[in-house]
């Protein structure tokens, strides 16, 4: 069964443990490639049936703004992809409250349903992971 892993031979249940992965997104979209690269890795990880969470902090909260139209800058608008994550059982999306408020944003400005966390709660979330990938 190598189809889902892109031809890479995976030992089934080699560890038997589902790990908790957290993707920490701290960069605005389009100005750098970080946001898009993070999303690509998240989609790849969906093939491995792990326990995936996404956190949006600092300028990373801008990634999930509604109403992005990128035609005029000739760059792919990848914001609708966040809505597709649900279809890959990636439903744990967290936004840092302080980052959101410092930018004058509210929960309904986002393209996807998120859970808003205080800095202390975010720290707990980070602490509770097996793997943290930062973008």
């Amino acid at each position, binding site marked *: 069964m190598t189809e889902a892993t892109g031809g890479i031979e995976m030992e089934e249940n080699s560890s038997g443990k589902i790990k908790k992965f957290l993707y920490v997104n701290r960069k605005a979209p389009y*100005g750098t490639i970080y946001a898009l690269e993070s999303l690509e890795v998240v989609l790849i990880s969906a093939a491995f049936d792990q326990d995936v969470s996404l956190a949006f902090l600092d300028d990373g909260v801008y990634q999930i*703004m509604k109403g*992005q*139209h*990128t035609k*005029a800058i000739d760059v792919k608008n990848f914001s609708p992809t966040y809505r597709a994550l649900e279809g890959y059982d990636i439903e744990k999306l967290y936004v840092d409250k302080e980052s959101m408020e*410092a*930018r*004058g944003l509210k929960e309904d400005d986002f393209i996807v349903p998120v859970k808003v966390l205080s800095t202390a709660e975010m720290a707990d979330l980070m602490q509770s992971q097996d793997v943290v990938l930062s973008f």
Partner: protein
Amino acid sequence: MLHTVNKSPTERNTLESCLKHLKKGGAVLLMEDGVYGALKGTASTKLVEQALKNYPIYALYPDIEARGMQDRVIDGIKLVDYSGFVDLVVEYPTVQAWL
């Protein structure tokens, strides 16, 4: 002199530094992630509004639109497209890019 800023004010101190160095006859163009400096209700809004009293500030609309910020731009900031960007470069004898 035309000053261009292309970094987010919450990522770098580029905008703040640029605004401090403005002189009579100067203007600012916010572009790429610099357009986050053009928004209402953020930590840098007051600073930009203050600068607007003395200097024209422009923002590149394609970058505003790409980021979903169409309805959040500070009143008084002039929106330009790419040909407006070129016009500004022609209008001002020198350009300083705050990278």
